[in-house]
C-alpha cells in the first residue's frame, strides 16, 4: 500500500455537481447499467459471479462478500415478488460516509442498486434512510426523480424490458433499524424488533418474500466492478479485503472528514498524513477503528503498523466495521468514554432480549460509579462478567456491540478504571 498517495478516487471523484444526472452521465454514468441490460453480454448469474469474484466485503460492518450474499437468493419464481433493501440507516457513532454518497454521488448508488436488482431479479428496492437525514432524504429523492425522468428507473429501463422501482423510506431515529432484520420490520410498519435467524432474509425477508440487504457504499461499488472488472477492483488495497473505501475520520485530529482510499491503509498514515495529525500535537491514546462497536486499538497497536483491513485488525482482536475511525488523544478520559458508549447502547437497545435490555442499563449504572469516583474493585469483575452474559446471547448483535468496546477499554485502560475506585487500599491489594 505504498502508492496510496497516487490513488485515484472512484466512489466520490472530484467532479462538481456530480449529483446532477446530466453531469453523472457526461462522466460515464449509467453506462454500466446500459451494458448490463442491453449489450447482451450479461445475464443475472454472470453479474452476480463478477461481483462475487470482486469480493466486495460489505461496507456496513459485517464485511461479508456481497456477491456471495446475492447468490443465496433462491431461484426466481414467477409471480413471487422479491426485494432489495438498501441500508442507509447509518447510525453507528463514528460513521458518516453513506451520507456523502447520498449528497455527492447518489447516481452511482442508484446505478449499483439497479444492477443488483437485475442480478437478483428484484421487483423493487427500498432505500432506508435514517430520519435525521431529513435534508439529505429530500436531496436523494431528487436524484431518484431525475433517474425516473431519464428512464433509468421505472418500466422497461432503456428498452430492456427490465422494470424497477426505488422507494425511499424515512426512519424515525433508531439505531437498531440499521440491523438488517430490524430494518425489515421497520419498513413493514412494525415495531422494529430484530428477527431470529434462520430463516435468513434470502428465504423470508420483507413481507415474507426473498430479500437481500446491502449497505449503500457496498452497492455504490457495483458499477465500478462492472466497468473495470472484478480483477481490477480486487487488485485495489488489501488482497483479502480489497477495494476502495470511504474512511471517516473524526475525533482529536486536525482534518476530520471522509476520505476515499484503498483498504489496507496504515492507521498511522490515516491519522498523521490524511488527517493532518493530532490536534494540538497531543499524543495518540486510542483509536476506535470502525464505529463505536469495534474493540478499541491502543496507540502501541496503531504504531505497530496496523492497517485498515479485516486480517490486520483481527490480529489485535478488532474489526474494520464501517471504517469510521474515531481518534482519541492522551487527554481522553477512557472511563467517561466507556460510560458514554454504554449510554448510547442503553438508549438504543430495543428491549426485546433480556441480556441486552438489562445489561446495557447495568453498564450505565456501574460505569457511572467510576465516572463519579465511586467504583469498587468488585465492579471491574462485574463489568467483565456482564460482557460475558451479553456477547452472543441475543437475537441481534447490539449486545455484542456494547460489550466489545467496553471489554477492550477494561483490558487496555484498566489502570484508569482502578484510579476511580473509591478505596485506594482495595485497589492496592487487588
Amino acid at each position, binding site marked *: 500500500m505504498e502508492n496510496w498517495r497516487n490513488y485515484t478516487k472512484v466512489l466520490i471523484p472530484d467532479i462538481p*455537481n456530480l449529483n446532477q444526472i446530466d453531469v453523472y452521465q457526461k462522466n460515464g454514468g449509467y453506462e454500466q447499467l446500459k451494458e448490463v441490460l442491453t449489450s447482451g453480454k450479461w445475464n443475472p448469474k454472470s453479474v452476480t459471479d463478477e461481483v462475487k469474484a470482486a469480493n466486495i466485503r460489505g461496507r456496513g460492518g459485517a464485511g461479508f462478500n456481497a456477491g456471495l450474499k446475492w447468490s443465496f437468493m433462491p431461484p426466481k419464481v414467477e409471480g413471487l415478488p422479491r426485494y432489495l433493501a438498501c441500508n442507509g440507516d447509518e447510525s453507528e457513532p463514528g460513521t458518516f460516509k453513506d451520507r456523502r454518497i447520498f449528497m455527492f454521488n447518489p447516481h452511482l448508488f442508484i446505478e449499483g442498486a439497479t444492477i443488483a436488482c437485475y442480478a437478483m431479479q428484484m421487483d423493487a428496492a427500498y432505500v432506508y434512510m435514517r430520519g435525521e437525514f431529513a435534508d439529505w432524504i429530500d436531496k436523494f429523492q431528487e436524484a431518484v426523480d431525475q433517474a425516473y425522468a431519464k428512464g433509468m428507473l421505472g418500466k422497461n429501463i432503456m428498452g430492456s424490458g427490465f422494470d424497477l422501482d426505488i422507494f425511499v423510506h424515512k426512519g*424515525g431515529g433508531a439505531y437498531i433499524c440499521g440491523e438488517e432484520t430490524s430494518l425489515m420490520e421497520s419498513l413493514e410498519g412494525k415495531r422494529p424488533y430484530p428477527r431470529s435467524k434462520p430463516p435468513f432474509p434470502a428465504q423470508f425477508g420483507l413481507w415474507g418474500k426473498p430479500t437481500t440487504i446491502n449497505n449503500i457504499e457496498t452497492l455504490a461499488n457495483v458499477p465500478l466492478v462492472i466497468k473495470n472488472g472484478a480483477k481490477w477492483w480486487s487488485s485495489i488495497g488489501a488482497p483479502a479485503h480489497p477495494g476502495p473505501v470511504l474512511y471517516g475520520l473524526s*475525533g482529536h485530529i486536525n482534518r476530520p*472528514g471522509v*476520505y*476515499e482510499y484503498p483498504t489496507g491503509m496504515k492507521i498511522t498514515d490515516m491519522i498523521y498524513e490524511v488527517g493532518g495529525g493530532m490536534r494540538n500535537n497531543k499524543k495518540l491514546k486510542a483509536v476506535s477503528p470502525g464505529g463505536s462497536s469495534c474493540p478499541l486499538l491502543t496507540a502501541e497497536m496503531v504504531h505497530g503498523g496496523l492497517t485498515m483491513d479485516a486480517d490486520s485488525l483481527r490480529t489485535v482482536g478488532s474489526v474494520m466495521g464501517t471504517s469510521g475511525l474515531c481518534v482519541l488523544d492522551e487527554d481522553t478520559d477512557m472511563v467517561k468514554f466507556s460510560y458514554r458508549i454504554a449510554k448510547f447502547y442503553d438508549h438504543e437497545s430495543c428491549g426485546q432480549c433480556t441480556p441486552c435490555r438489562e445489561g446495557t442499563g447495568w453498564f450505565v449504572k456501574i460505569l457511572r460509579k467510576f465516572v463519579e469516583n465511586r467504583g469498587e474493585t468488585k465492579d471491574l469483575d462485574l463489568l467483565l462478567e456482564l460482557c460475558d452474559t451479553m456477547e452472543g446471547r441475543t437475537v441481534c448483535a447490539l449486545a455484542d456491540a456494547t460489550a466489545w468496546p467496553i471489554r477492550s477499554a477494561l483490558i487496555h485502560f484498566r489502570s484508569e478504571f482502578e484510579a476511580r475506585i473509591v478505596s485506594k487500599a482495595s485497589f492496592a491489594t487487588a
Partner: protein
Amino acid sequence: MAESVVFEFTEAEKAEIQKHVAKYPDRKSAVMPALWIAQEKFGWLSPEAMELVASTLDMPYAQVYGVASFYTMYFKKKVPKYLFDICTCFTCGECGGDQIFKHAQNSLQVDENGHSADGKFWIRQAECLAACDTGPVMQIANRRIVHNLTPAKFDQTVDMLRRDQMPAFEPVAPKYDQASPAAKAAPEPEKVQETPPPAPEVISDSSEEE
C-alpha cells in the same frame, strides 16, 4: 387549550398518504410516513392523532402506538416549536458537545423537561447524528443539522429561530474534506457551468491540499 383541534386529514394529506401506501405491498407499511404527516400537522402525536393514522390505514391503534412510541423523532408529548437535538455522543461529546449542551441549558434557562423559559425551545441530548467529522453538531426540529457548533454559533442560531428563520442548509464539508467536491467548487461557483467537463479520473493527493 381554548381552540379545539379537529383530528382529520385534508384531502391533500390523504392523497399524500395514499402515495406512500402505493409504495408498499401492505398498506400498514405506510404507518411511518403517515405518522410523519400527522406530526407535521399537529406538532406531536397525541392519542387522537395516532387514532387518526390507525383509522386512515385501517390498522390497529396498538400497532400505530407501538411504532410511534419506539422512535425518538416521533413526539409523544406536546412540545415547544423548536427542538435542539444536541449531540453529546462520544465524538461530539469529546469535541465540545458536552459544553454546548451545558451552555444551551444555561442560556435558554431550561426546566427539568428541557423546555426553555419562553416556551419556544426544547433541548435534549442526541445520540450520534452521523456528522462526527463536523462535531459538535445539533439538529433543529428533526430537520436541519448545524455543523461545527460553538456557543456563539448556538446563540446566533437561537436568535434566528426567535425570528422563525431556519438556518440555511450547510452542504457539509470541513475545508480539507477530500470527499467533498462542493468544498473545492466553492471558491468559484459561477464558473462551474463553463469549465469543460473534468476528466473522470483526478489524481488525489491529500498532502497537496494543505
